[in-house]
């Protein structure tokens, strides 16, 4: 847990204090997760954190694959810290969900929104995203995101909805220095791992 001095320093560094419910929820959740494994925030929340004026109905988080014992510790820590899992109260069942490739959804106890959609890394591409995770100071948060290059590649190559393509376009404008070779490389991996027939 951060002490007061850390919080004050953080506020000074950020200059703009925008810890609204969305940031508070996500940072508090991530702080607990980070005690057990590495995580990344991906997709819509990345775009919104970079100024995209559009809605998202949840925050997507990918975490390193954990064994059952370690996941139960994480789940219980989340519950004891004021979060609840919508699908089940049982940590064992919660693990089964993740293990089957189904997302878990957490909210602050008694609330409906915002909602954290949590999933295990499912292949080497997710593991790569976690390995390359980054903090982006302009977002004003202390969160780890999947890299801008990864986000652009996924949105342009795999997701491709008008909303995703607009997100990618927006991220390209915010980060014209994004590494084009890296984007191309990730797109090839997406084709190899996610689009094979």
């Amino acid at each position: 847990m951060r002490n007061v001095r850390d919080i004050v320093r953080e506020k000074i560094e950020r200059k703009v204090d925008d810890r609204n419910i969305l940031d508070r929820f996500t940072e508090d959740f991530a702080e607990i997760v980070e005690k057990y494994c590495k995580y990344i925030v991906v997709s819509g929340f990345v775009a919104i954190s970079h100024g995209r004026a559009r809605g998202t109905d949840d925050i997507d988080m990918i975490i390193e694959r954990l064994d059952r014992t370690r996941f139960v510790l994480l789940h219980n820590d989340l519950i004891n810290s004021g979060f609840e899992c919508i699908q089940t109260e049982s940590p064992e069942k919660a693990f089964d969900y993740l293990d089957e490739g189904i997302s878990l959804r957490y909210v602050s106890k008694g609330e409906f929104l915002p909602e954290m959609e949590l999933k295990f890394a499912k292949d080497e591409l997710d593991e790569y995203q976690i390995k390359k995770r980054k903090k982006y100071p302009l977002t004003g948060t202390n969160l780890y995101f999947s890299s801008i290059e990864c986000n652009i590649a996924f949105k342009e190559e795999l997701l491709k909805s008008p909303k995703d393509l607009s997100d990618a376009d927006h991220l390209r404008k915010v980060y014209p220095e994004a590494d084009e070779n890296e984007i191309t490389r990730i797109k090839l991996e997406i084709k190899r791992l996610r689009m094979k027939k």
Partner: protein
Amino acid sequence: MKDRSHDEKIERWAKYVKEHPNEWKKHMKLFLDAQVTKANNFYKRLAETEEGKNKIRYILNYPKGKKI
């Protein structure tokens, strides 16, 4: 990629909206306001960086000469 939990979530929320017609908007407003605030605060931080204001003009497609 959406999985089973996404459909379940929509059903849950729709049920809540139907059963709590006077309450659901409060939850939604707070959530949506936070997203707009978040986007605005991003631009405030960006404006403070070198070339930030020009970048904002480019990102938001502002006409030439528009003051930020």
